[in-house]
């Protein structure tokens, strides 16, 4: 089972962003790192200078690098940027919007979680265009994941295992709207919330988090309890999506759990220690509301316990 570090979805300060990836290169036992602005094209210039040295350091550390792309492409400069990315990339591009496929021309690439791969028919079609790896949308239940892996053995199936789940993307920037700025003059207020802005209901239930034009879950996906089912279902890679916590440590926990050096309840407890204030969720995997944490674990005496 491979571990993939997904792109940083938030707007982190450039030096923090760079140091984060240096640390990943040096300390995180991940096989693949997908990197590059995915959520808002306006943020991309902030990371342009750091990107080459970061990629070099990751590769020197033995990580395979994928270049992530925009999840929503509506403006002309965004189209051009994606066309240039596909044309010039020395690494596989992670396609997050169907429009980037128009530039691919048979080039091997990977499909990110923002493309709607809901079934084996779509997976096979994408594979026929050169996709070698597909990260499935977070809302897919394990049953569907298994059917896709079985129906499309030619690609590596990856699932979104850890991190706040991306739920929606919009033309409207909620950070700008909340701070009463226009989107064009947003002053990059999303930078104030490096782990997303918490959204509660009027009755105080913790619900969502906002990251500029993107809406994510409040809860953090954690599929460690389903490791066995994922493996049996043909999943070959797990995606860890960066949160504002010690992601190298999260990667180590996942690596140890995958390799059988750490049992699941301990691994989940470890994750909780590393990322303490956000509840875990696995509801999507079971076809339940995505916000729910359903995981149970059978102790030796056969008693099911909540994790």
């Amino acid at each position, binding site marked *: 089972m491979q571990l993939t570090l997904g792109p940083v979805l938030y707007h982190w300060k450039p030096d923090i962003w760079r140091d984060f990836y240096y640390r990943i290169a040096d300390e995180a036992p991940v096989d693949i790192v997908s990197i590059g602005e995915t959520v808002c094209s306006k943020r991309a210039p902030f990371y342009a200078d750091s990107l080459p040295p970061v990629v070099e350091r990751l590769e020197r550390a033995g990580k395979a690098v994928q270049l992530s792309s925009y999840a929503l492409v509506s403006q002309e400069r965004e189209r051009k940027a994606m066309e240039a990315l596909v044309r010039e990339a020395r690494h596989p591009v992670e396609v997050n919007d169907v429009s980037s496929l128009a530039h691919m021309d048979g080039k091997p690439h990977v499909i990110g979680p923002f493309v709607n791969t809901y079934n084996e028919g779509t997976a096979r079609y994408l594979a026929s265009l050169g996709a070698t790896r597909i990260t499935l949308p977070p809302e897919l239940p394990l049953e569907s994941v298994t059917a896709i892996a079985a129906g499309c053995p030619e690609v590596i199936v990856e699932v979104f295992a850890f991190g706040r789940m991306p739920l929606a993307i919009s033309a*409207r*920037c909620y950070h*700008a*709207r909340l701070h009463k700025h*226009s*989107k064009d003059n947003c002053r990059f207020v999303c930078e104030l919330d490096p782990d997303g802005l918490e959204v509660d209901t009027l009755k105080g239930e913790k619900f969502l988090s906002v990251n500029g034009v993107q809406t994510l879950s409040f809860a953090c996906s954690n599929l460690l309890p389903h490791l066995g089912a994922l493996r049996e279902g043909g999943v070959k890679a797990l995606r860890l999506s960066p949160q504002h916590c010690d992601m190298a440590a999260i990667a180590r926990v996942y690596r140890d759990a995958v390799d059988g050096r750490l049992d699941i309840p301990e691994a989940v407890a470890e994750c909780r220690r590393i990322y303490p204030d956000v509840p875990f969720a696995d509801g999507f995997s079971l076809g339940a509301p995505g916000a729910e944490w359903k995981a149970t674990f059978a102790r030796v005496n056969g008693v099911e316990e909540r994790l």
Partner: protein
Amino acid sequence: MESSRSSVPTIPGFLGKVMKPLPLAPLQPLLAMCIRAALKKHPRIFDRLDTYADKRFGLNPTDLPFAFVLEPRRQNASAQAVRELPDGLDVKITGPFFALMGLADGYYDGDALFFSRDLTVEGDMEAVVALRNALDDAKIDFPELFAANLGPFAPAAEKATRAALELLRGRRENPTYTREEKSWN
């Protein structure tokens, strides 16, 4: 956001008071006749209601001194007038009589009635949606239903009921339109 003033007519308060002491018994056969006629004429209602045909729907007109319990079962469908809605209903829909009637015959758009707060709905929302869609598709014509069993008097009764209904409902109007300049940001 303030809701615009309702365009649904209400039955005047004094009429409601006048009706209060009246017995409900004479109403029952009329209701029974209407629902049987409606379901016989519009069997597609059952298709659309599907499993929700087994639910019990309470209709609570706010401007009448009684309410209705509707059970649109395939076998033995019933509609009954009651002084007060019993407990244990699957669905309760509350609003002016003409709003409820307009929902049933598609005169009003159910969503619009809800948005304007003319109607409130409680209980099994799927059942509400199924009933609304089934009724909307059926194009129920109350004057025709009412007159259906009146034999030779049917045409005259239908005509009179239709005229009365049109008069009571008034002209359906959409509130004056004011465009709101909302920025999309």
